[in-house]
């Protein structure tokens, strides 16, 4: 095989399946390993479904099995009943995430475009500041921000979780700037000659072309906000305002001292928390791949 490879003339077409180098050939051992690893990684997920489908008696007796034995599908409708404000949690999650995504998409495109295309004194220095802010951990600003929002009377509202997103963030500015830099500048120069102003260029020419990077930013923001636990924990103390990520935890922490938390319903909540993420990833993975690779390697060098 090896000699056949080296003697093949460069122009000669050899089917790629015949040219698999030895290091890339799979063995029964690699299949066995992959099957075992995948199975082990999936056990917790199957276990969650099993718990979500179990009856209240099983919960109280704590006799869960990994493979589902009972199928109480009504648990999925029960959580929307009156005993738990699960539909409220879900709605809050949607409101907060939608606001955050809208804010990031609107602001990041504009700022990123400015840094990539418009010329102004002080721009380069400002961009170094953008990059530098990526290194500041959010814990440093957490306490003063809390005090600021407390002064504004925004504690126990959605606003502290949504409004900061309308001011973009360094990572997203960087992503858009890198993306715009790769677009040919003749397009906007031509538009300029045609008499379109800077905002017109952004609105009519840039925005449609920015769709992939803005979708990626939307997905990043959605994933981060949807799963965010610490932000809601700091700012929201009213049960009716909590998003799902906090609500699920809240249910387990407030049940009666002698009674086990309703684990089956908690796990239904966890599934409701997870499913949209799987869906979003499935629908948007090609955008994520593109951004991860280009953003990732550019960030290191």
């Amino acid at each position: 095989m090896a000699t056949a490879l080296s003697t093949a003339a460069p122009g000669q077409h050899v089917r790629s399946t015949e040219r698999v180098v030895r290091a890339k050939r799979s063995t029964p051992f690699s299949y066995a390993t992959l099957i075992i690893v995948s199975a082990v990684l999936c056990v917790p997920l199957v276990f969650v479904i099993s718990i979500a489908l179990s009856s209240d008696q099983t919960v109280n007796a704590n006799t869960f099995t990994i493979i589902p034995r009972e199928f109480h599908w009504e648990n999925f409708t029960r959580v929307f009943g009156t005993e738990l404000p699960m539909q409220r949690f879900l709605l809050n999650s949607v409101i907060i995430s939608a606001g955050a995504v809208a804010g990031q998409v609107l602001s990041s495109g504009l700022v990123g475009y400015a840094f990539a295309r418009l010329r102004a004194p002080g721009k380069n220095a400002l961009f170094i500041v953008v990059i530098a802010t990526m290194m500041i951990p959010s814990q440093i600003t957490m306490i003063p921000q809390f005090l600021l929002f407390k002064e504004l009377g925004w504690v126990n509202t959605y606003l502290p979780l949504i409004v900061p997103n309308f001011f973009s963030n360094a990572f997203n500015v960087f992503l858009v700037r890198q993306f715009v830099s790769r677009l040919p500048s003749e397009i906007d120069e031509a538009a300029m000659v045609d008499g379109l102003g800077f905002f017109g260029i952004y609105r009519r020419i840039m925005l449609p072309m920015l769709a992939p990077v803005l979708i990626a930013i939307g997905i990043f923001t959605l994933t981060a906000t949807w799963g965010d636990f610490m932000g809601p924990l700091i700012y929201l103390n009213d049960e009716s305002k909590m998003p799902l990520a906090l609500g699920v935890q809240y249910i387990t922490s407030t049940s009666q001292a002698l009674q086990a938390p309703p684990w089956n319903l908690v796990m239904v909540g966890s599934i409701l928390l997870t499913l949209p993420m799987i869906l979003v990833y499935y629908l948007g993975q090609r955008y994520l791949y593109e951004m991860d690779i280009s953003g990732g390697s550019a960030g290191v060098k």
Partner: protein
Amino acid sequence: MSMLRRREALWFYLFASPWIIGFVVFLLGPMIASVYISLTDWDSFTAPKWVGLDNYVRLLTDDPIFWKALWNTFYYAAVSVPLGLVIGLWLANLLNKGVRLRKLFRTLIYLPTLVPLVATAMIFKMVLAPSGPLNDALGLFGIPGPSWLLESVWVKPALILLSVWGAGGATVLLLAAMKGIPRELYEAAEVDGAGPVRQFWSITVPQLTPIIFFNLIMGLIGAFQVFSQVYILTKGGPDNASQTMVPLLFNEAFSFYHMGYASAISWLLFAVILVFTLIAFRTARRWVFYETEVK
């Protein structure tokens, strides 16, 4: 400057204004405030009392819990990040062999990383229960499993286990990078008689070092800021054996209203992250391989 250039500059600052305002209001202002607060004793209701460097001195010389949290955070980061990367690399290499059903395996390995952290914590609360599936599995091999989250020796390994469950995130990135390695390198190595193991260590790994390095830095920064798992699963217990920096900071600030003390912790956390990032960059010259440097 011409009219046109001046107008362009104006538009630049107009377009960039969301970030500039956000930077001043949500980052620069709070950072300066944080420095000041860290030098005071303040419960956020009464007037702050200036104490100078007292908070820092107390943290570093007179607070065994802070040192314990620092050690735990370090332990967690030092084990979970390299372990996750090694497992991620190992799985990526397996997937990179021409296996059938690669997409299926890749999806199954990646699935855990899509589960939000709160849900992951809920799942592991059950998985790691004293009579949970993990201990059942250990029981099959005759090993009496510990009560993970309730024992101070086992609580950190338990949290590491939770983080390793998400090793698939690195796998997907590394797999994408592996596809980009020129196959000529492998063919040449094969002609020279190098086996699969040798090829893995001499071609795959060196070619991937930039991605591994990126994951290492991001992983370390993330691990030093671990919060949700600890807060939900253990609250830092038992006996502070799983207390880490951010949950400690959170408690000081929002349970005890020690705003000054908590701000000082946040700056020390920043210093720790900075030191480790710098160390990683320092050593990078020795092991991270950039193709462009050679040419």
